[in-house]
């Protein structure tokens, strides 16, 4: 049941985005790649028992309703924590995975179909540079064979011509041609990554997907590779989709930046806008996580360091379990001070995730010097743990909270949750935030943006 509800939500929300949904004919020549409501779910293998009970396998929503476009000659940076679906996105765009839903159009043509009918033709237009330089080169081939491989597959010209082209590419990426008969194991990480780039360039593609190309390298080597990427972009007139979790690297190379969280786009904007005026709380947190900045926004830190699993992502806004600025309930029964609200919301999250079960409560009470585990003590301890003041400013809210705490103290977590389910429900939990237009090219998916 839960699964179905989530699915319908995700589809609805992505259709309600205000990025204009053009049809194939309307595509302008500037757009190289257009991704429309792309979803990629991984399914666990259905075991025998699942099959016998005709149970649906669990789905991992790696990419869930993502829409954007890449213009010719631009660099689109993609940032996000690990597990947010960046790499899956890149591989689905490359046609290495079939999308579960939605389409990727490359120069107006559907990639999934093109790859099925003629992968070679598509290979000439889009290539990928991989993250791990130790695994992306076949250890049994010499460098010459590795760089020549795409030329061999596509039978580009006669053999001597291919070898010339290989030498040309090797020199372009800054390696000496006398290294061509070596094996990848004899090279350093940076040199291997250069070979990876040379190989990707061999077929003269229009789009290069850079899947964290520098994350496995030393900082000094990173800079060299980034410079190289920048040079060849101009020289070969390439478009980049640049994936990284490193903001400084993204900032250096990207024209536009897209921030992803748990398979969804939370914000997309020109590079300088993202870094100067981030609109989404998640972006702000990402930015503040770079050492040079203060590690909080508005004096508040990320509440909960656990990233929810993409198997069962939170309902509504996926960031609400960690968001430091969750929108207070919009019903008129209760009113909150922002601080109070966050504490109460914290209480609710703890309650829901089962972090306030009987054992935990006993433990908490014992930590305090009150030895007796009676109702009043438990209530007090819970309030203290979540940072809720002794009495809330709103009397209705206080009543509701007290009911809930009493139920919790009696060991009835379900009733405790039920008490606060309606009155303390944030819009962030209910509603999938629509992607809002903020300024030219700046979109963000946050309810706060809408309210402002």
């Amino acid at each position, binding site marked *: 049941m839960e699964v179905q509800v989530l699915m319908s939500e995700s589809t609805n929300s992505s259709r309600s985005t205000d990025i204009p949904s053009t049809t194939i004919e309307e595509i302008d020549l500037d757009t190289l790649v257009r991704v429309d409501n792309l979803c990629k779910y991984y399914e666990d293998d259905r075991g025998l028992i699942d099959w016998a009970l005709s149970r649906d396998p669990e789905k991992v929503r790696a990419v869930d309703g993502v829409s954007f476009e890449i213009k010719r000659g631009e660099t689109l940076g993609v940032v996000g924590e690990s597990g947010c679906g960046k790499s899956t996105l890149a591989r689905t765009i490359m046609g290495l995975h079939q999308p579960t839903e939605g389409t990727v159009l490359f120069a107006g043509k559907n990639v999934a179909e093109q790859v099925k009918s003629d992968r070679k*033709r598509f*290979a000439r237009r889009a*290539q990928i540079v991989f993250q791990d330089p130790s695994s*992306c080169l*076949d250890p049994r081939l010499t460098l010459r064979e590795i760089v020549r*491989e795409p030329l061999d597959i*596509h039978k580009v010209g006669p053999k001597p011509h291919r070898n010339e082209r290989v030498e040309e590419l090797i020199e372009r990426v800054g390696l000496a041609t006398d290294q061509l008969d070596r094996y990848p194991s004899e090279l350093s990480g940076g040199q291997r990554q250069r070979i*990876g780039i040379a190989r990707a360039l061999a*077929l003269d593609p229009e789009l290069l997907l850079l899947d964290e190309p520098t994350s496995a390298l030393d900082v000094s080597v990173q800079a060299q590779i980034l410079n190289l990427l920048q040079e060849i972009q101009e020289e070969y007139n390439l478009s980049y989709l640049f994936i990284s979790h490193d903001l400084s690297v993204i900032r250096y190379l990207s024209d536009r930046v897209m921030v992803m969280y748990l398979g969804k786009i939370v914000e997309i904007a020109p590079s300088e806008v993202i870094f100067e005026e981030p609109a989404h709380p998640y972006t702000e947190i990402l930015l503040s996580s770079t050492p040079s900045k203060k590690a909080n926004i508005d004096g508040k830190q990320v509440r909960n360091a656990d990233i929810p699993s993409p198997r069962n992502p939170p309902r509504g806004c996926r960031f609400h379990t960690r968001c430091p600025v969750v929108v207070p309930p919009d019903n008129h029964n209760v009113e909150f001070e922002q601080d109070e609200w966050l504490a109460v919301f914290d209480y609710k999250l703890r309650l829901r995730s089962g972090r306030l079960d009987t054992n935990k409560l006993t433990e908490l009470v014992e930590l305090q010097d009150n030895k007796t585990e009676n109702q009043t003590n438990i209530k007090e301890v819970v309030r203290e743990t979540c940072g809720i003041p002794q009495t809330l400013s709103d009397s209705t809210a206080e009543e509701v909270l007290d009911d809930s705490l009493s139920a919790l103290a009696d060991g009835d977590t379900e009733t405790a949750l039920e008490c606060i389910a309606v009155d303390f429900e944030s819009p962030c939990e209910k509603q999938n935030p629509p992607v809002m237009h903020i300024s030219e090219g700046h979109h963000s998916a946050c309810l706060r943006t809408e309210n402002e």
Partner: protein
Amino acid sequence: MISKRTRTAVLKELHSNKLATVGTALILCMLFVGMFAPVLAPHDPTQQDNSQTHQPPAFMGGETETTRLVDGEMQTVTEDNSGSLTHPLGTDTNGRDVLSRAIYGARTSLLVALTAMMASLILGTSVGMTAGYFGGKTDTILMRFVDVVLAFPALLITLAMIGVIGPLTFFIPDPFVTSGLITDRPTHMVFPVTITAAIAAVIWVWIARVARSEAIRVKNEEYVTAARTMGRSNFGIIRKHVLPNSITPILVLATIQVASIIIIESSLSFLGFAGTNLSWGYDIAQGRDYLGTSWWLSTIPGLFIVIAVVGINLFGDLLRDALDPGIDRGEV
């Protein structure tokens, strides 16, 4: 086909590892003996001579006193039954030369072992690669079949197959005899087809399992994904990337399996399913009844089996050490 790097690695390993050298020498000897059996064997291994039965190996035996009936009365006589250099390893119940039989036995064993190995290598690698690379249903179906074969003892399956197919042998003309270089030797080599096929049918599953696990390991490497984005076909990827990167453990296993094939072949011959009587196992079975008096009948072919098996295993270790770490450790 063998790259320069591989050759260097093997030579280096040969230099540094004494045991590996011994193993390689043993294997080369066996191959040499098997190949040039008609030249090396001092006698025709099938030639019977009833006046020369149960002769001990050279420098063994000697004068023995026996009591027996001579001219109607019991007498203690001294008999000279010492080995001679004519039959360096003695003769058997029918007066056949044991050394010649062992040399010809090497030929049969190696013929069966190498043919069965090639067959299982081809079948096992193709099935394993297909199952591992494509995965999913293909994998499930193929590997369940492999599991079924693996679940039975190898000897049982081969016996059943021999029962079903029946004995089938090929006679291959011996080049040395046909060309007239050597006379007085058997004119044909006997190649027991049924036994070879039956052995291959149980050995390939081991190869298939290793090939599959290797294919699964390699197919998740990024260079395979890279080859796919370059537009290489699945078959091309298997041939160009997956197979070359998984061949080392397969080859090592295949080498060591040659030893177990030799043992299976000898066991079958011992049990009387030989298809040829020029086989180590057959000779051991023949000599079993005389272990007390003529130990050499069973011991000599037994020693040949031990030498072959130990040699092959040592050689397998050499291959493993030479081919694997050279790439993993990034050595030249």
